[in-house]
């Protein structure tokens, strides 16, 4: 009799909590509000700080349509705000792309620059600029195609042989080297291939023109929306291919759709800011620390945090070493490189899973 009782103990909770309805999961709203406030503060700071004399009241006047000094207006509209917008868009897109790529490859070391997606986009941008110098509107399209080609290559490598996580990263680095050689080759043949932006190869947003942001911004908006819609599949894919298949998810289609979306995001970012590295690697990790692992939440929070990070770093790169200016990509690499090494060391134990 006691035997039967013990076996029944698992059912004693039956019905206990069924009436509670929707789960009492802790709310994300305060954390998202904090990230939004952070982004606004950073953007305002980046708009008003710098060698030229512009202050917060000028910015406020511009936003409200109130009259303001012509010089201040000129600096805000033509220099500072395009630059802030470019940094925010690039950071947002790269961080979201990183969150998607880490999810779809189930690999914490992956990010658009580490696996060669940025380099693929960069090569395509330079090649299209060299071949069709007049067609500037081709740039975002070329960036997307290049990013997609690189993402597909990495996907095939990772799916083909059951490669370990580090092997995928190494293959991505090899791709990065190949695309990098291609970029250098283009620049040797046609040194003027990309004059539009300084620091394309390390990533920078100096000299951004507002009219160049329209198409990438549209791509980023579409990519963000699509990645949020695909997030539930990313969660299910983390259960492994067989389980995901049995749960009714088309595994190959879902993975390819997610990688395409990541390529759209990363390609758009590269067409704005060049080969800006490590945003997509660092930000999703920081976000998971504060927000947990639900893909939808991680992608949304990464987008906000990535924008804040790149705007803040660009501000520092611009102001800290005045009168010199450093491309923001250099600062990102200084931050991200050590973090990547830390992740590699941390993942060493788990790499052969």
């Amino acid at each position, binding site marked *: 009799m006691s035997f039967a009782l013990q076996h029944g103990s698992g059912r004693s909770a039956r019905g206990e909590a069924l009436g509670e309805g929707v789960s009492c999961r802790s709310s994300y709203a305060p954390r998202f509000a904090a990230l939004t406030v952070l982004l606004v503060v950073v953007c305002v700071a980046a708009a008003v700080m710098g060698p030229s004399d512009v202050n917060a009241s000028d910015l406020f006047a511009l936003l409200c349509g109130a009259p303001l000094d012509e010089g201040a207006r000129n600096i805000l509209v033509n220099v500072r705000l395009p630059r802030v917008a470019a940094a925010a868009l690039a950071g947002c897109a790269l961080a979201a792309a990183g969150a998607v790529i880490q999810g779809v490859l189930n690999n914490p070391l992956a990010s658009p620059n580490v696996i060669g997606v940025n380099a693929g986009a960069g090569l395509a941008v330079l090649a299209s600029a060299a071949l069709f110098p007049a067609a500037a509107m081709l740039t975002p399209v070329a960036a997307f195609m290049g990013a997609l080609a690189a993402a597909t290559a990495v996907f095939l490598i990772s799916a083909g042989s059951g490669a370990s996580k580090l092997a995928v990263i190494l293959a991505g680095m090899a791709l990065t080297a190949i695309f990098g050689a291609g970029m250098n080759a283009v620049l040797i043949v046609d040194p003027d291939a990309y004059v539009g932006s300084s620091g394309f190869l390390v990533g920078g947003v100096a000299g951004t023109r507002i009219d160049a942001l329209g198409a990438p911004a549209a791509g980023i908006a579409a990519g963000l929306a699509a990645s949020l819609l695909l997030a539930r599949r990313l969660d299910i894919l983390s259960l492994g291919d*067989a389980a995901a298949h049995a749960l009714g998810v088309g595994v190959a289609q879902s993975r390819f759709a997610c990688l395409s979306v990541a390529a759209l995001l990363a390609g758009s970012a590269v067409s704005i800011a060049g080969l800006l590295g490590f945003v997509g690697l660092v930000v999703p990790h920081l976000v998971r620390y504060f927000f947990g692992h639900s893909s939808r939440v991680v992608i949304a929070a990464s987008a906000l945090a990535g924008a804040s990070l790149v705007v803040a770093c660009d501000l520092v790169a611009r102001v800290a070493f005045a009168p010199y200016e450093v491309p923001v990509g250099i600062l990102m690499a200084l931050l991200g490189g050590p973090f990547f090494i830390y992740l590699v060391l941390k993942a060493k134990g788990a790499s052969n899973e």
Partner: protein
Amino acid sequence: MSGAVEAGASALAADARLFAASPDEARRISLPYALTMRDVDFAYGKAPVLKGFNLGVPSGILMGIVGPNGSGKSTVLKLAAGLAAPAAGEVLLLDGSCAVGALSARERARQVSYLPQRMPLPNMTVEELALCGRHAHRRLLAPMDARDVRAAHTAMDEAGVLRLKDRPVRELSGGQRQRAYLAMLLSQDARLMLLDEPTSALDIGAAHEMLSLVRRVVHDGGRTAVAVLHDLDLALRYCDEIAVMAQGRLMGQGAPSDVAEGGLLEEAFRIIVIRHAAPDGQCYTFHPRPADA
């Protein structure tokens, strides 16, 4: 082509009948066979795994599949789950009315659920894992609704993990983890559940608990389960029917006592089976054959 459409249509008709009925009625309308495999051939590359394999799984039972290593047990589940397509033969659901391969991924997932032997550990709570089971029931882009949450909660309750719902799956014991995965399968609400060695990573106590739980959800819930099991004692104790496989073929299937005493196990595993009286019926022990046999 039209054959597939017809099969799909009759499957949907059977579905409508079952979903319209109350749970009690649904059990009475139950179809004679939940899974039928006819003359199935399957090979990985050039190595044949199944050759002319036949199996009928009656509805409403827990069926165990046993057999020596490499006899193709797991492959049978993969074919039934639609993870692979047979090179020849048929894999049919719903009393033979529809082929697994003719269903879309979502339709199939509403009919068959599958627990692989090994899965990467997800970064989810038990509740989030259970909600994954609802994927095939949700519209493409629709948010989760109260019905999904209720189904997941009922499933966690049935699997005895409702108290653990906010715990990360990573932090659970092996037995709790398997029950959490079972909750995911239950919230998927498929009438046929396929379990690939659900007890292989568990200690003997947790293994007994897991299989008695599976037996209960099968019998109480009008479901059918097929479990590949390594442990013959567990298989004979908990399964309603046992299928014995060897070298890619079905050697026979039947009630546990018939399988144990009819020589099937002895032939498949080349062992000697001895029956003992036990407090709760009978049990069997398994012994090597003498070397000269």
